[in-house]
């Protein structure tokens, strides 16, 4: 069980790396689908207004 900050940080980084490796291991078609999802997210953020739109 992690106790110190260093151990907790190491655990978090290892978990993140494991997630990234799992993403890399996906079939190419699925990775491309996720790449398009990333694009859509960026576009949505870019096009979002700074203040709420008037109703």
């Amino acid at each position, binding site marked *: 069980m992690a106790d110190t900050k260093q151990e907790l940080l190491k655990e978090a980084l290892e978990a993140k790396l494991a997630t990234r490796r799992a993403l*890399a291991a996906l079939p190419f078609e699925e990775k491309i689908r996720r790449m398009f999802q990333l694009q859509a997210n960026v576009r949505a953020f870019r096009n979002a207004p700074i203040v709420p739109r008037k109703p």
Partner: protein
Amino acid sequence: MPNLQIVLRRVNELREKGLVEQYAIGGAWAATYFSEPILTEDLDVFCHLPSQSLLISLSPIYEHLKNLGYQPADGTHADSIQIEDVPVQFLVGNALIDEAIENAVEVDLMGERARIFDLEYVLAVALDVGRAKDLSRIDTMLQVTTRPIDQERLRSILVKHSPAKPKLGEKTLFDRWMRLEEARDGGH
């Protein structure tokens, strides 16, 4: 999601019609093949043009695609053509790119054949281009890849494409790689 099968079919047709001699996909798509999904806006298709061409011109490719009803992409992708909602950029490159095309790997994407730069060439080309996003992709691929990087092959590519006598102040590809590795070692 756009119909990638049609996009790749259009690219493969260029070869069948003799408009390109050979091609390979590079950039973020190739990096994504060997690593995790990487954000990009367009598909980079690097081409060997037919050897009988006296001038290096991509116009016949764009004309052919326009005749099929595809339009140039707009906004930040003005140098691309929109095929099935994917901005596709056709590019010709230097000797490193030519070698990357020759040594590309063939993959299957949605039932359509596609040629993609091999991992060591994805890294070498990203280092050669050297923009912030290319260096970031290198960092990603150094952390996560679907197969180990063949360090010997990579170094051989970098040395081959580094001039023996660089100009004053010029950093060769191999020098840049060594600096990048030193920076990474220092950060760990």
